[in-house]
């Protein structure tokens, strides 16, 4: 069973809506990640948080806004999205930030399916 929990599992939103995806882990991990996976494609990294600070932003458009309220929670705020942003959004975590050890196992949640209409 995954120990990274994502809500909601499915989200349909209009292009003018504001919504949020939420992620929670209770494994004491200090790094958390957002990945985006388009249909029939591999996951692509969006953001990395290390010790609750944003350490990597892979040139993601500003309509995606991450937030890490504490070490267990990670949010992704969505605003003015486009239909091409429809995808599976995967949250993940690892024990140590990748800067300390790049061989960490990254644990993924089951994802949030986002459809932008």
């Amino acid at each position: 069973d995954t120990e990274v929990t994502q809500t909601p599992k499915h989200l349909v939103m209009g292009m003018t809506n504001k919504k949020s995806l939420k992620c929670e882990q209770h494994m004491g991990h200090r790094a958390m990640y957002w990945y985006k996976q388009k249909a029939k494609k591999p996951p692509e990294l969006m953001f990395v948080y290390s010790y609750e600070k944003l350490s990597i932003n892979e040139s993601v458009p500003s309509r995606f806004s991450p937030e890490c309220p504490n070490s267990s929670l990670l949010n992704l705020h969505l605003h003015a999205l486009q239909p091409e942003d429809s995808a599976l959004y995967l949250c993940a975590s690892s024990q140590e930030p990748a800067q300390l050890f790049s061989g960490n196992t990254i644990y993924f949640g089951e994802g949030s399916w986002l459809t932008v209409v």
Partner: protein
Amino acid sequence: AQSVTQLDSQVPVFEEAPVELRCNYSSSVSVYLFWYVQYPNQGLQLLLKYLSGSTLVKGINGFEAEFNKSQTSFHLRKPSVHISDTAEYFCAVSDLLEYGNKLVFGAGTILRVKS
């Protein structure tokens, strides 16, 4: 930047037959390699990883992979597959960025196990 190439987009195989899913990585001084599985409509689950040491790595669900530095390969194998192994399999490498590392995934291989 590191990269991985999965040579087969789909692999059909009969139940109880052996299977090999191929992965080649871009050469580097040191490399950390991973295999993840994604069942339909689910997230990714780690099957196994190579960090160092023994080149034969055993993972969950009866899978194993062999790290071959001379051929820059990290192929995944299972001696006898089950219907339940039907899924998409991703090979990944840990790539070093200025402020950290990230997993870089291959394009994926869909394993279809037929009865």
